[in-house]
C-alpha cells in the first residue's frame, strides 16, 4: 500500500506540474463574453481572422472577445470546444462551423440557455440567431468562373476543386461556376469536384494527375484557401504557365509568387479579418437586443450596407459586400 501511495504521489506531482501552466488563465469576468470559434486554428486564414477579433476587442472595451479553435480539422473537436464554452457560460458564440449539421443540436441547447449564436460560412444553419456571409455565394462562384472563362477564351476543358464534398460553401461556388460556364458552349467540365482537404501538397499531386490525364485542360477553378498554391505549383512545374488558367479562393500573401509568375490567373477572397469583426459586431448588437435591419452599417469595411434576409431557420441571414477578386496587377492592394 505504501508503494501505491508513493506512485500516486509521483503521478499527481508530475500532472500538477504539467497543468500548473494552464492555471490562472481565467479571471472573473463581468463584461459580456463573445467567444469566436473557428474551424481550425493555426492556419493563415484564421490567424488573419484572429487579428480581426483582437481589433474588435480593442475597439470595444465593453465586451470580452477572443478566438479559439481545434488543433485538427475535425468537426467533433470543434463541437467539444463549443460545448465546453456553453458550459463555461459565455454570452455569445461567433462560430465558423466546420460542419453546420454537426453543430445543430449544440447550438439549439446554447440558444435555449440564452446564448447568442452568430455563424459565418453556414447559410444553411437552422439553429442560429444570425449567419453572416461576406457575399452571396452564387455571385462569388459565378464571378470566379467568369474570370476563368475570360482567361480561357471561353472554351476548353476545365475542372473544379473543393475542400471537401461536405463543405457547403465550396459546393455552392463550384455549382454557381458550373451554371455560369453553361453560357459558353465551348467550355467542357471534366472530373469535377476534386477534394483537396485544404492541403496544398495533396492538391499538387492531384493537379499533376489531372494534367497528365487531360493534357489539353485549360482551366482550374478552386475553392479552399490552399488549393491555388497546390494547383499553381503543378502548373508552374509542368511549364504550363500562361497556357492553363487558374482562378480560385486564395490569400494574397501566400499566392504572391505564383501570381507574379502567372501560374495563378486571379484569386478571389474575402477578408477573414473583416468577417471576424462583422461576426463580433453582430453578436454585440444582438446581445444589446438591438435589431439588425436591411442596409445597416456594421462599422466594418465591406459590411457598410448589409442585406438582411430570413435565414434557413428562425435566424437572420446577413450578407455583406466583401468580395475581392485580385490578379497580378491588383493583389498588392490587399496584402495579408
Amino acid at each position: 500500500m505504501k508503494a501505491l501511495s508513493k506512485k500516486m504521489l509521483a503521478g499527481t506531482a508530475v500532472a500538477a506540474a504539467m497543468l500548473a501552466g494552464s492555471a490562472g488563465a481565467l479571471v472573473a469576468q463581468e463584461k459580456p463574453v463573445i467567444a469566436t470559434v473557428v474551424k481550425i486554428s493555426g492556419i493563415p486564414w484564421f490567424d488573419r481572422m484572429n487579428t480581426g477579433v483582437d481589433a474588435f476587442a480593442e475597439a470595444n472595451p465593453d465586451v470580452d472577445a477572443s478566438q479559439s479553435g481545434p488543433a485538427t480539422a475535425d468537426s467533433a473537436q470543434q463541437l467539444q470546444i463549443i460545448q465546453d464554452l456553453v458550459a463555461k457560460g459565455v454570452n455569445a458564440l461567433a462560430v465558423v462551423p466546420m460542419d453546420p449539421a454537426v453543430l445543430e443540436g449544440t447550438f439549439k441547447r446554447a440558444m435555449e440557455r440564452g446564448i447568442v449564436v452568430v455563424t459565418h460560412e453556414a447559410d444553411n444553419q437552422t439553429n442560429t440567431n444570425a449567419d453572416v456571409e461576406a457575399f452571396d455565394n452564387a455571385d462569388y462562384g459565378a464571378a470566379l468562373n467568369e474570370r476563368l472563362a475570360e482567361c480561357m477564351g471561353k472554351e476548353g476543358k476545365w475542372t473544379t476543386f473543393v475542400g471537401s464534398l461536405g463543405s457547403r460553401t465550396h459546393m455552392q461556388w463550384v455549382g454557381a461556376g458550373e451554371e455560369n460556364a453553361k453560357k459558353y458552349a465551348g467550355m467542357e467540365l471534366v472530373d469535377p469536384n476534386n477534394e483537396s482537404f485544404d492541403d496544398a501538397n495533396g492538391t499538387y499531386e492531384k493537379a499533376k494527375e489531372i494534367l497528365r490525364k487531360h493534357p489539353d485542360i485549360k482551366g482550374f477553378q478552386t475553392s479552399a484557401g490552399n488549393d491555388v498554391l497546390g494547383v499553381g505549383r503543378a502548373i508552374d512545374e509542368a511549364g504550363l504557365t500562361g497556357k492553363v488558367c487558374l482562378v480560385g479562393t486564395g490569400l494574397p500573401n501566400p499566392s504572391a509568387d505564383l501570381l507574379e509568375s502567372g501560374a495563378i490567373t486571379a484569386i478571389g477572397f474575402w477578408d477573414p479579418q473583416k468577417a471576424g469583426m462583422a461576426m463580433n459586431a453582430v453578436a454585440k448588437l444582438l446581445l444589446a437586443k438591438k435589431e439588425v435591419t436591411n442596409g445597416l452599417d456594421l462599422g466594418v469595411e465591406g459590411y457598410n450596407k448589409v442585406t438582411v434576409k430570413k435565414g434557413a431557420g428562425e435566424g437572420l441571414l446577413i450578407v455583406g459586400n466583401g468580395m475581392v477578386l485580385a490578379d497580378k496587377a491588383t493583389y498588392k492592394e490587399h496584402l495579408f
Partner: protein
Amino acid sequence: MQKTGGQLVMLVAINCLLLVLGAAISGGSFLSLFNLQSMASQLPEIGLLAIGVMLAMCAGNGGIDLSGIALANLSGVLSAVIVSSFLSSTDSETAFSLAFIAGALAIGFLGGLTNGLLISKLNITPILCTLGTQMAFMGLAVVVSGGKAVMVGSPALLSSIGNDMFLEVPISFLIFVVVAGLIAAALKFTPYGLWLMLMGTNPKAALYAGFPKNGVLMATYAISGTLSGLAGAIIAARNVNVKFDYGSSYLLIAILIAVMAGVKPEGGYGRVICVVLSAVALQLMSSLLNFGGLSNFVRDFAWGLLLLTFLAVGRYDLTGFLFPGNRQPVSLAPRPHAPKRDN
C-alpha cells in the same frame, strides 16, 4: 497485482486532481452541475470506442481496432438512410428511434464480425486488416450518403438519449456506464473473458490447450464493432445529423485512452474500469483547457505528456527512482506470464 492496482489508484488521483484544478481556475463553475452534465454527455462516444480498442488489444498478437470511428459513422449513416426509407422520424417517432438504434447496432455487429472473420480465418494482421476495413467503412459511408450529412432528426426517444437526464445524469452516460459494466462482468465471469486474456498472454499455448481461437477473435471484434454501432447511435442522438468524417481525430484518442489505462499493447491484460477512468481524465483535461481559454495545441501536448507520465510510472517504477530511500525489493527473476483476471 500491485502494479495494476497502482494504475487504478493513479487514474483516480489524476481525475480528482483535475477536478480540483478545474474548480480552482474557474472559480467553481467547472464543478457546476451543468458543466459536469456537459462533460458526461461528451464522454460516451469516445469511451465506447476506447473499450473496443481495449478488447482488440487484449486479444494479443498485435490486436488493435482502427476501424472504430469509421464503423460508428457508417452505422449511423447507413442506418439513417435505410430506416428513413420506410419510416418517417416525425410521424412514427418511437418506431423510428428503435429501428434506427437496432440498425446501427446490427451494422456495427456485422462490421466487427467482418474484421473478426478476416483476422481469424485469413490470418491478416489486425492493424492492416482494420486499417483496410476502416477505409472501406468510410468509403461506404461516403457512397451511401453522397458525402453529405444525413439528417436523423430528433424523434422523442432518440432525442432523450442525446439530451435528457435521468436523476440529473445524462442518459447517454448511463448507457455508457451500463455497457462498460456488462463488458467488465463478461470479462470477469464468463469463459470468454478467461480465454481472451489467456490467448492474449500466450497465443501458442492457448492454441495447444484447445481454446476456440477463431471464436474468441470473432467475438472480440464483433463486440468491438457493436460498441462502435452504439457510439454511432449516440452520436446521431446528440448531433441530430450523422456524417462520414465525424470524429476523425477519435481514432488516435481511443488508442491513447486504452494505453493510458494500462491495457497491454502486446495483449493479455486490460481493465474496463481503468479505460473508463482514463477516458474521464482526458475529457476533464480537454474541458479544463477549453475553460482556461488555452490553445488546443496545448491540449495535444498535455495529452502526450500525460501518456508519457503513465508509461513512465507504469513501466519503470518511477516511484523508486524518485524516492530511492524507500525502494521496494523488486524481484529480478523472470516471472511467467500469469493470467490476471481482476477486472
